[in-house]
C-alpha cells in the first residue's frame, strides 16, 4: 500500500461571488522514498494540493470531498490535535520564501529546539545536539556558530538550507516542498536541489516537489503530475512525460521552452491564457487554447467543449484528453479486428 494516497480530492473556496472549485478529482499516490513533482502555471492549484494535504487551507477554503490517507490514517476529518502530531513531525513542509518561514526574532538554534521540544520529550541540550547534527547534514559551514545567529544574518541560500534542516529535524516520512528555489539564483538553486535530492535518497524520505520549472522536475523527481485549472491532466513517470508528453497542454508547455527551439526561431506559444477558476469553460478546461480541438480532416471534436475528459491509460501515464482517448481507440481497433 502506498504511504500517501489521495482520492478524488475536492477543495472549494466560498467567495462572495460564489463558490470557486480550486481542486477537483485530484488523485495520486506516493510511495515511501518516492520523489513526485507537481507542475503547472500560476493558478493551476499546485500549492492548494500541498496545503490541503496537511489541512492548512485557510477560510474561506475547505476540503469539500475526497480522501487523503497517510500511512493508513485518514487526514481529512482529523482534528487539530491529531494533525499536529503529523504536521512537521511525519510530514514537513518547505515554503517558497525562506525569510517568511523563519521567525526573525528567534535564533536559528531556538527555532530548531522549539520544534523538537514540541514533538518529543527531549532536553534542551539534547535538542541542540540534534539541531547541530541536522545543520551539518545540510552542509552549512560552521554550524555551531549558525545556531546562535538570526535569520537576517544568513544569505538566501543559507536560509533555505536551514529550512531544509528544520524540515528534516524530526525524521519525517514525507517532505512537501512548495517552489523551494524560486526565490534563489540559478547556481544556488542547483546546489539546494542536489542537496534535497541526496538527503531524500539517503534517508528514504518521500518528496512532493511543487514547481513551475519543468527542468527542475526533470532533474529531481521520479514521477510527476501536470495540473491545469485545478485538475490533474496528466500523470506518470517523469522521464516518460518529459520525453513524450501526451496531453496537448503538456506538449505546449514543453514546446514553449526556449531550450526546445532553434535559437532565434519563433517559439511555439500556447495562445491565450489560463481561465480563471470562477469562469471555467465547459468540457475540457483547456479546449479554448487547444490546437487539437479539430481533427486533421477539419471536423470538430465536439466532446472537448461538452464533456470533461476522463483519464485514459497511455503506456505508464494517465492522460485526461479526448484527443488522446480517440487516438488510443483507433490504435486498438486493428488489433481487435485481427484477433477476430
Amino acid at each position, binding site marked *: 500500500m502506498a504511504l500517501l494516497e489521495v482520492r478524488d480530492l475536492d477543495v472549494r473556496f466560498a467567495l462572495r461571488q460564489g463558490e470557486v472549485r480550486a481542486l477537483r478529482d485530484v488523485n495520486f499516490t506516493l510511495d515511501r522514498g518516492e520523489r513526485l513533482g507537481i507542475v503547472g502555471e500560476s493558478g493551476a492549484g499546485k500549492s492548494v494540493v500541498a496545503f490541503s494535504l496537511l489541512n492548512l487551507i485557510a477560510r474561506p477554503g475547505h476540503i469539500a470531498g475526497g480522501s487523503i490517507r497517510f500511512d493508513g490514517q485518514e487526514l481529512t476529518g482529523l482534528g487539530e490535535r491529531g494533525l499536529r502530531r503529523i504536521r512537521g513531525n511525519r510530514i514537513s513542509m518547505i515554503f517558497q520564501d525562506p525569510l517568511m518561514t523563519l521567525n526573525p526574532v528567534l535564533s536559528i538554534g531556538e527555532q530548531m529546539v522549539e520544534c523538537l521540544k514540541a514533538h518529543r520529550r527531549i532536553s534542551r541540550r539534547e535538542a541542540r545536539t540534534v539541531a547541530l547534527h541536522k545543520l551539518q547534514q545540510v552542509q552549512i559551514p560552521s554550524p555551531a556558530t549558525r545556531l546562535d545567529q538570526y535569520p537576517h544574518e544568513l544569505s538566501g541560500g543559507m536560509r533555505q538550507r536551514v529550512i531544509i534542516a528544520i524540515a528534516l529535524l524530526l525524521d519525517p516520512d514525507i517532505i512537501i516542498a512548495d517552489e523551494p528555489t524560486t526565490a534563489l539564483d540559478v547556481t544556488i538553486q*542547483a546546489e539546494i536541489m542536489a542537496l534535497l535530492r541526496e538527503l531524500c535518497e539517503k534517508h528514504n524520505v518521500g518528496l512532493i516537489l511543487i514547481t513551475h520549472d519543468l527542468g527542475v522536475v526533470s532533474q529531481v523527481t521520479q514521477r510527476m503530475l501536470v495540473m491545469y485549472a485545478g485538475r490533474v491532466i496528466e500523470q506518470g513517470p517523469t522521464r516518460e512525460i*518529459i520525453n513524450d508528453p501526451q496531453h496537448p497542454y503538456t506538449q505546449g508547455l514543453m514546446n514553449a521552452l526556449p531550450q526546445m527551439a532553434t535559437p*532565434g526561431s519563433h517559439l511555439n506559444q500556447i495562445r491565450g491564457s489560463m481561465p480563471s477558476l470562477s469562469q471555467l469553460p465547459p468540457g475540457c478546461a483547456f479546449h479554448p487554447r487547444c490546437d487539437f480541438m479539430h481533427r486533421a480532416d477539419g471536423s470538430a471534436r465536439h466532446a472537448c467543449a461538452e464533456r470533461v475528459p476522463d483519464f485514459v491509460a497511455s503506456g505508464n501515464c494517465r492522460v485526461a484528453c479526448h484527443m488522446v482517448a480517440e487516438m488510443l481507440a483507433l490504435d486498438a481497433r486493428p488489433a481487435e479486428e485481427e484477433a477476430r
Partner: protein
Amino acid sequence: MTTLTEAQAQHVASPGSPPPLLEVRGLRKRFSLSGDFLDQLRFKGGRLVRHREFVHAINGVDLAIQRGEALCVVGESGCGKSTVARTVMGLISPSAGEIRYAGERIDRLSPKALLPYRKRMQMIFQNPYASLNPRMTIQQTLEEPIRLHHPDWDRRRVRDKVTEVMAAVGIEPDWGGRFGHEFSGGQRQRIAIARALAVDPEFIVADEPISALDVSIQAQVLNLLMDAQRERDLTYLFITHDLAVVEHFGTRVAVMYLGTVCEVATTATLFATPRHPYTQALLSAIPRLEDDRPQPIRLTGEVPTPVNLPSGCVFHGRCPHAEPRCRREVPVLRPQADGSRVACHAVEEGRL
C-alpha cells in the same frame, strides 16, 4: 599599464567602422548606505568623524552595442545588471564613466537636452503590475509618450499611432477604454511593449521583461519582442537571469558578476565554449530537461556583498581555479582567439 579596455580594443580592431549605437566606458555606480551628511557623523574615541559606506553596484563596465543586435546581460541577483540598464537609460546617473549614444555623450545632458534621446531609447520593465499607471486607461497610457514627443501631432494622428501599436502587439483596439488591472500579466506586458514602441524608438532596454510571467506566456512575449525587432529594426539591451532565454534571443552575451563583466561573447560561442569559470558554473546550473547531462559544477561559498568588495578578482572566493594572483590583481577583459573577451587570470595564463 598597456592593457586596453574592451571599448578601446574594439576601436583599434576596426578603425573605419561606424560607432556602436550605444557605448558604455568605465561605468561605475555606487549607492550611499549612510544617508545624509548629518547621518554620517559618528563619535569615535571622543572625536566626531564622518563615516560613509557604499554599495558598489557597478565597478567599471565597458559595453558596446552595435545597431541591430540584441545584447543580453546575464547574472545573478545583485550583480548590477539592472543598474546598468537604468544608468544607460539615464534613470540614475553614473558615479563615473561615459555613456555614448550614436557617438554622442549622453550621461551629462540636461533633461531637456536628453529629450530627443528619450524618444530614440525606450524601456520595458520587469513587473507589468507596477509599470502601468493604475489610474490611466490603456488609451491614455499609450497616448502619453506620443503627445510628449510629438507635441505638433493632431488628435487623429495620435489616435492612429495608438491603434497601430496596439495592433502590432496583439491588443484588441476596443480595450483602449479599460484600465491596467483588468488585464492578465501577459496582456499588461504587451501594453508596456506597445507603450515603448509608440514613439518608434530604435533602441530598447528590456529589464527582465518576461521573468514575472508564466512559461506559456513567456513564449508569447518573447515572440512579440523578436517580431518587433525584425519589423522595426530594433536594437536591444536585454537584461535577464534566464540563460535559456539568452541562448534563444541574444546575438551577444555579457556575463556579469558582482558589478563587473567577466565574459563577453557571441551567444553561440558562449554556449559552446564558456571560458570564465563563473560562466561555466552558470551554464551547468541550468535545469535541463535531458537526464544525461553532467552534474552541475557546484560552487562553494556565497556571493560576497557589494559593500565590501573582495580584493583582486571578485569571483576568487568561489572559484575552483583561484590562485594567489587572483586574490591580488583585478583581471581585465582580454580578447581571445575565438573572438570572445574574458576577464580571468587562469584563462590568460592558459591554466583553463
